[in-house]
């Protein structure tokens, strides 16, 4: 047996799952898709007293669109998101980010809620949630609360969720029609975690850049929104010169870590290179109309 012993519970409902979390007082782990947790169990890096398996809990896997917002159940598989026409139509950045999550056999099991709650800063979904201005709905014994990305991610593999709280839903505003987008990342092998990734969204209005969104993966302990680089584009437009200036500014805005995969300097350089690449590709995907309006939630 690879994992250490644990009590196993497969509750049929969210309420039951939360009651179990409360009962074990922080010694239980929620099991969603298992693509990050089970490796930790196999190595015995994680030895929880109990696993609360959400795979039998009803009503947690869905994709609904209404009134310009998309709601995604926490247990929705990444594979379902990848092939969802609703996601392709309203959140093409999320569809593209999904194709970069591991490999197809990983996405068969992996879930959006699990990935966000795991909060790996090199993963695609925390960055996509930040770039899209989304929120997560969290439920616990004291009721429900809604958190923006900046309120959810606290540090490396750490969120602000309490031990008896559970992420139940992801809410994302639909991208403006015609918005340009790209998720660029660099990894040594296809499907590996990104050494650095950049999500870019641009909205053009009569030749100007009405709004821009740039968010990193892997360049800090949490996804970093590159507001000062976005402002360069919103002020100077989408010319090559402005893109170059925004990319250089992006590299100044990050404090990346050094580890066995890459040095901080290398990651900073990648931030500059990938910001330029992401912006150039995002501009190519702008429809002629250019996506009037602003990215919702933009400050």
């Amino acid at each position, binding site marked *: 047996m690879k994992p250490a012993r644990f009590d196993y519970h497969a509750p049929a409902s969210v309420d039951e799952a939360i009651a179990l979390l409360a009962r074990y007082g922080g010694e239980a782990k929620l099991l969603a898709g298992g693509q990050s947790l089970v490796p930790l169990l196999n190595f015995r890096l994680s030895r929880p007293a109990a696993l609360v398996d959400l795979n039998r809990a009803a009503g947690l896997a869905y994709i609904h669109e209404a009134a310009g917002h998309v709601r995604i159940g926490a247990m929705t598989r990444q594979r379902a998101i990848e092939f969802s026409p609703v996601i392709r139509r309203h959140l093409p950045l999320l569809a593209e980010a999904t194709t970069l999550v591991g490999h*197809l056999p990983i996405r068969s099991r992996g879930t959006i809620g699990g990935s966000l709650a795991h909060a790996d800063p090199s993963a695609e979904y925390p960055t996509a949630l930040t770039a899209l201005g989304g929120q997560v709905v969290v439920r616990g014994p004291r009721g429900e609360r809604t958190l923006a990305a900046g309120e959810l991610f606290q540090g490396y593999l750490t969120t602000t969720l309490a031990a008896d709280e559970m992420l139940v839903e992801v809410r994302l505003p639909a991208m403006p029609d015609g918005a340009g987008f790209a998720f660029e990342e660099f990894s040594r092998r296809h499907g590996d975690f990104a050494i650095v990734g950049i999500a870019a969204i641009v909205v053009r209005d009569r030749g100007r850049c009405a709004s821009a969104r740039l968010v990193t993966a892997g360049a800090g302990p949490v996804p970093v929104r590159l507001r000062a680089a976005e402002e360069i584009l919103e002020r100077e437009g989408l010319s090559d010169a402005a893109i170059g200036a925004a990319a250089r500014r992006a590299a100044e805005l990050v404090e990346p870590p050094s580890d066995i995969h890459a040095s901080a300097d290398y990651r900073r350089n990648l931030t500059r290179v990938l910001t330029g690449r992401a912006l150039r590709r995002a501009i190519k995907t702008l429809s002629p109309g250019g996506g009037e309006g602003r990215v919702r939630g933009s400050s």
Partner: protein
Amino acid sequence: MSDTLPVHLTVNGHPREGHCEPRKLLVDFLREDLGLTGTHVGCEHGICGACTVLVNGEAARSCLMLAVQADGAELMTVEGLATAGRLHPLQEAFREHHALQCGFCTPGMLLTALDLLRTNPRPTEEEIRHGLSAVLCRCTGYQGIVAAVAAAAPALDRPR
């Protein structure tokens, strides 16, 4: 606590059952409890893909699932590919194109490729390479595997 739980599932079209501790991985259950040793155990943390099986028709790592999670599921393993003593067209293509040497990754390659071709029946070479990047091979150099999957695609795209 050594409590075991019953696991009832369908493997390659046949109902099977067993009892195991909740911490037993699906791949170990297949090999040790059901005697289906065609599925290989490689890295045991989801990187190498050797243990890939189809769970309800979708490729998944059997080292990243607990056996109890497969209760009620329909599985396909490499043992289920050949029918009536005849190799599956994908297996024929692997033989034809020298897509295996030691054979360790082959069960995972076959089931990953099967899922890939069902999802995308006529993939480009680049799409095949992306799809197969889910499984590591340490000896063929991949060329033969990519050629085999490309060659099998038209045969699998026709109703059999």
